[in-house]
């Protein structure tokens, strides 16, 4: 998921949801009062990071695979701590490598953290493997869990992109594109996860036993988490999309709101002044290339049904854009010169 593909409403909703999950997980980790876990979490995060640098070659495909994070962390740390570690891996990737972006971080944490750590680990892996792990149970559990986890994550990406409306891809095409790719990735990740878990189980079984028996989660809480999440999404998402529909431009609305304009004063006073000011300053208010979504899809390459664009406008647009860029580059150049002197 990337900043460029999401709308502020979707980005903010997902950031709020993910922040809530982080706060909830922190509370849970703190409740277990196991401060031994905090350094362990940090080091395991670094392990995921380092392990992703080592690839293996998949026979007969010419491609390579590496370890995914969420599942193995959940198995070793339990869902709450694992979710926090996944979130921090994604924070570092967003900040240092620009993977995703800051606004999309909420989406990414949800897709790659929430699904594997909470849904898939608790509802699939734990159920399949149970209290007495065997080799077969570990393999089937990891495989199914990884596949389902990646399918959910991919679906998350599709839905978030769809709700944002920046990409033109229709839902069905996007789903057909994303799901099979992630099926393949899921199989690879499942196999790797299973193999690593079995490796640890053979070498040091006490690690897995300790992780499985540290009773920090009741099965009850997953419903609570899901319910809380649903409520949060409905409230935040609903509020934001309502804003988006009643105020086509959410940001402007937010700006008026923060400028202290309440509905009661709409008819007089500040609002009038503000909108008059806006009209004055924007003599091309809300300049758009295209009007609304409601227009029927025109046949490709026909004459535009929509009033032909005045050639003068496009020339002045290009000239203005060029000039703006030139001025900005000039400013940058001078700042750099001044530093060098």
């Amino acid at each position, binding site marked *: 998921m*990337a*900043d*460029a593909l999401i709308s502020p409403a979707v980005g903010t909703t997902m950031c709020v949801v993910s922040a809530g999950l982080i*706060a909830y*997980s*922190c509370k849970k980790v*703190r409740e277990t009062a196991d*401060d*031994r876990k*905090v350094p*362990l979490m*940090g*080091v*395991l*995060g*670094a392990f995921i*990071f380092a*392990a992703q*640098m*080592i*690839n*293996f070659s998949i*026979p007969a495909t010419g491609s*390579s695979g590496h*370890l995914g994070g969420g599942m193995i962390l959940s198995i070793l740390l339990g869902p709450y701590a694992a979710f926090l570690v996944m979130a*921090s*891996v994604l924070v*570092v990737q967003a900040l240092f*490598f*620009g993977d995703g972006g*800051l606004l999309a971080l909420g989406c990414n944490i949800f897709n790659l953290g929430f699904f594997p750590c909470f849904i898939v680990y608790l509802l699939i892996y734990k159920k399949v493997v149970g209290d007495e792990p065997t080799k077969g149970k570990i393999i089937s559990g990891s495989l199914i869990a990884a596949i389902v986890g990646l399918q959910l994550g991919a679906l998350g990406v599709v839905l978030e992109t769809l709700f944002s409306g*920046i*990409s*033109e891809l229709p839902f069905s095409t996007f789903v057909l594109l994303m799901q099979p790719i992630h099926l393949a990735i899921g199989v690879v990740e499942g196999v*790797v996860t299973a193999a*690593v878990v079995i490796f*640890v189980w053979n070498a040091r079984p006490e690690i897995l036993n300790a992780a499985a028996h540290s009773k920090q989660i009741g099965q009850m809480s997953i419903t609570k988490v899901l319910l809380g999440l649903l409520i949060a999404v409905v409230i935040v998402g609903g509020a934001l999309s309502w804003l988006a529909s009643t105020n086509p*431009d959410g940001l*402007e609305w937010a700006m008026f709101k923060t400028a202290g304009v309440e509905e009661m004063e709409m008819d007089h006073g500040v609002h009038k002044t503000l909108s008059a000011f*806006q009209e004055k*300053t924007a003599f*091309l208010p809300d*300049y758009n*290339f*295209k009007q609304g979504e409601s227009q029927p*899809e025109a046949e490709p*390459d026909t004459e*535009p049904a929509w009033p032909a664009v005045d050639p003068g406008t496009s*020339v*002045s*647009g*290009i*000239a*203005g*854009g060029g*000039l703006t860029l030139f001025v900005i580059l000039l400013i*940058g150049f001078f*700042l*750099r010169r001044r*530093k060098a002197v």
Partner: protein
Amino acid sequence: MDIRYMDIMASSDTSLHGLDPRAKLITTLLFIVAVVSFDRYTILALIPFFIYPIVLISAGGLPVGYLLKKILWVSPFAVLVGIFNPIMDREIIYHIGSIGISGGWISFFSILLRFLLTLSAALILIALTGFNAVCQALTRLGMPRPFVVQLLFFYRYIFVLVDEAERMEMARSLRSFNSRSTNFRTFISIIGHLLLRSLDRAERIYLAMRSRGFDGNIRMIKTINLRWKDLAFMAGWAILFIGFRMNNIPMRLGDIIMEVF
């Protein structure tokens, strides 16, 4: 490794580096929200926003080429999703001379511009601030402490474990006549041992820190406080972003040019 270079940039000393990390974090978020809030056919109105990354890069003495290379490195996903726009949306909505441009190409270009702007803002934030200071800002803005503490641990041990992974990879390569591909069995064995070593290391770290009085907090000597110049930095950019958001400046400039000539 790559992360190290970002940290070196963050440790230089310009007036921008000295600003309160909270001010920089909030300004970055405002910038990103302003950029992504435009509708999908916006190109022109996005151009003025380039002033933010360009001014920060110039005044902060950051290497332009390096940052651009980093952005290019992660661009495939945005390009991959965006490239379908020209295929799906072929309605011609714009003319330059006699060449018609479809809405899809315009929205594709808009995605690329957004991508460039938002990513450069995020990378600039870390290059001007450094990771520890960003974490400090997060704590002060209300992020729960266990999360931030393990984030700091995580960051510290990335370097150690990446070195470890590189050593193991080199050992494998030397024992297999420099072959570049790793088979599955070897791969699992390397990863498994890396994991066991990491677990042991975590245990040692914990014991060492406990015996030095670790109580679940990481304390920083450098305190942060908001001063007037931090507020001015935030407010100045915020006003500029709002101005750019509400006025299509390139359009107005272009009209003025057309009137003059």
